[in-house]
């Protein structure tokens, strides 16, 4: 049935022992380099925000409250994205993240109101995993198309939670009672100083203080858990044998199987972890952000998480950046219309900087395009006083479309992502 192919390391897509040994030194070097570049980029971004804040007087653009809210939204988005990462790295596309997240919100509402928020988080996480189990059975065991199964999971997630709500809360089936809050962490004194500096409105200094205040004042412990999950995921997937095997299932499952990797098992593990993460994300959304379960409260955050993962090129760091960006756009539209308008100026400045970079790289055409776009955005800013609310709403989706259409050559998803794997059917 299957053809015999010469088994060379490159063809299999699996690193040969030689490959594994040498690049680690290389990766370390590039890693620290990107670390510096990341810091510089972050400082540059804060500088631009600060400049715009001083010029326009839109204090909300990077006030501690806005940044805290942005991080708050980024957490469920990032958790859903991490879920997508686990699943897709093993070669299973997971559109059902949204449905698993819905299950998570319900679990948090049901258990959280009865036994406290931590139980809510646990039950929400487990329910998300249950949804993922269904996805795994359909896609891995039965080889059903993964998109189709994902759509069905979304449908089921909604239906099951609606039914359970009606059963558990017959009087008010669309929402739970309020969930007791998660304890928060505050760095005493330090956070107060940062607040003072942030309120002083000094160029750049206040903006950095604003960020520091946001990450030291009343930070829910779930945020720390979620943030720790990022390096943990990176370590497990990219620095352990288990992770290598799991990723090999997403790149070349038949080759992996021939080397003794149990592809079905690894895919099952990956998809179920994916569901745990999405469910946890949903539970955090209900417990921390809303303090209540409400029907339809995910509002497509699962899909934004998926977008953040693609935006981040199926990598942990990129996913974190994408989640923060999308979390920011979610937060800013709720905080202040003035700040949303001022963001146009931020976009214009960033585009000008991008144009300068392009000219420096002798990429005249892209430079001119950036510059012209910057001019148009600036005109938009100058000619209007407010921006429709919907602009911030559509930003994550438009940003993802832009990134996909501009950088799709550079994005690289797992080679066997989305293809059903049936043992012994390599042709």
């Amino acid at each position, binding site marked *: 049935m299957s053809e015999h192919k010469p088994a060379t390391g490159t063809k299999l897509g699996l690193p040969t022992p030689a490959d594994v040994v040498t690049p680690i030194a290389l990766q370390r070097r590039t890693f620290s380099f990107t670390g510096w570049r990341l810091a510089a980029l972050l400082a540059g971004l804060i500088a631009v925000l600060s400049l715009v804040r001083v010029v326009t007087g839109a204090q909300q653009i990077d006030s501690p409250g806005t940044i805290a809210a942005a991080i708050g939204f980024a957490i469920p988005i990032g958790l859903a994205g991490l879920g997508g990462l686990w699943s897709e790295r093993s070669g299973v596309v997971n559109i059902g993240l949204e449905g698993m997240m819905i299950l998570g919100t319900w679990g948090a509402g049901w258990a959280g109101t009865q036994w406290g928020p931590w139980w809510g988080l646990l039950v929400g996480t487990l329910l998300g995993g249950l949804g993922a189990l269904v996805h795994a059975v359909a896609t891995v065991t039965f080889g059903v198309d993964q998109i189709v199964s994902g*759509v069905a999971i979304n449908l089921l997630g909604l239906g099951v939670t609606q039914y359970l709500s009606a059963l558990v809360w017959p009087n008010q089936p669309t929402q739970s009672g309020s969930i007791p809050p998660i304890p928060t962490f505050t760095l005493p004194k330090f956070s107060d100083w940062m607040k003072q500096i942030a309120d002083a409105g000094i160029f750049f200094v206040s903006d950095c203080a604003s960020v520091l205040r946001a990450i030291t004042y009343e930070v829910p412990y779930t945020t720390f858990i979620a943030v720790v999950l990022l390096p943990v995921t990176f370590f497990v997937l990219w620095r352990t044998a288990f992770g290598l095997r799991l990723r090999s299932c997403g790149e070349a499952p038949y080759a992996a199987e021939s080397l003794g990797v149990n592809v079905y098992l690894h895919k099952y593990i990956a998809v179920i972890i994916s569901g745990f993460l999405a469910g946890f994300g949903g539970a955090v959304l209900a417990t921390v952000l809303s303090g209540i379960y409400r029907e339809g409260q995910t509002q497509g955050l699962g899909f934004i998480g*998926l977008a953040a993962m693609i935006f981040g090129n199926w990598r942990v760091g990129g996913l974190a950046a994408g989640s923060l960006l999308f979390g920011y756009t979610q937060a800013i539209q709720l905080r202040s219309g003035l700040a949303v308008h001022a963001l146009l100026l931020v976009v214009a400045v960033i585009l000008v900087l991008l144009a300068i970079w392009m000219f420096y790289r002798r990429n005249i055409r892209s430079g001119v395009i950036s510059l012209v776009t910057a001019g148009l955005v600036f005109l938009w800013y100058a000619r209007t006083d407010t921006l429709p609310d919907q602009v911030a709403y559509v930003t994550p989706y438009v940003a993802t479309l832009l990134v996909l259409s501009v950088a*799709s050559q550079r994005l690289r998803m797992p080679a066997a992502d989305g293809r059903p794997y049936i043992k012994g059917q390599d042709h």
Partner: protein
Amino acid sequence: MRRFWLGLAAPLLALTFAVVVTSVILVVSGHPPMQVYKDMWDYGTQPDSLVLTFNLSTTYYIAAVSVAIGFKMNLFNIGVDGQYRLAALFGAYVGGSISLPAPLHVAVVIAVAMIVGALWAGVAAVLKNRRGVSEVISTIMLNYVATGIIAYLLAEGRFGVLAQGSSNIGTPPIPASGQVPGLAFLNNLPFLNGASSQVYGMLVIAVVVGMGYWWTLNRTRFGFDLRASGLSASAASASGIDAKRMVLYVMLLSGAVAGLIGLPQLLGESHAYNLDFPAGLGFTGIAIALLGRNSPVGIVFGSLLWAFLDVSRQILDLEGVSKEIVTIMQGIAVLSVVIAYEVVRRYGIRAQQREVGRELAAIEPATTAGAAA
């Protein structure tokens, strides 16, 4: 013949499984399943309910065909949802802003809706062809962008006017010349006799769409290319089918049909696009297309069943059963149908292989005997 039985076995198996699971859930939550089903059947077969069922299934049928067109060549148009809402909004706005003689007025609304739907779907096609963006992701994103655009346009001073005596914003109402009357004569049928409402006139459009879909798929070069691309992309391109052009055409076609989804409701009942215009029909369409195996006839049964369940479940709340049980049943049905098709497909392949093996085994001794001699 065996293919026919296998094809029939899958949906029956899946529906049985869905009913069994639903029954278990009902029993666990303390309701006798048979009583629940009987209540649903009794309520669902009343004339008024049947009219509602036909009207809903008209919409569902168009939605499912729109999705199925893409599915037939493995093109996932998850964006049907955004396409039909955007199309219905523009159709409603244009329809409410002009006045023309009756047939022309309706034709203009239909044309506008189809064009808007096709253009919005075309964005995903262009992104796929020119920039290599997966249509699954781009159409999901475009759904949300469409939601944003609709929220922006549906405001006073843009497309919206405030309905009298309420806070519901909608497009200006479409005048009588742009409305499609119900099919009153159908109420003479015995099972619709005495219904207080009428079946949408747009039922005709659904029938036309279904026949057009069947005709295109089975009787035209384009339909052949489409099916060939779906069965094997590499074989299709080897035989000279331009894959990119197919993606563009199929997406435009799917979007144009998606543009029609909102029209039965728009032209037959609400006559305006307002805040409570039905949403999410695109996803229902996906489910029904899967249930009906993308076949023009299969989708008829799928949409009728889906609509019947949606209508008849309304009685459940009065009986103290949560009507969401039906959503669960639908979800399980879809999932088990796709699993059942896959299982049956594999069984078919294995049976075929065994048969070939048997035939070969019968030939081989003869040839080896011949070679020895």
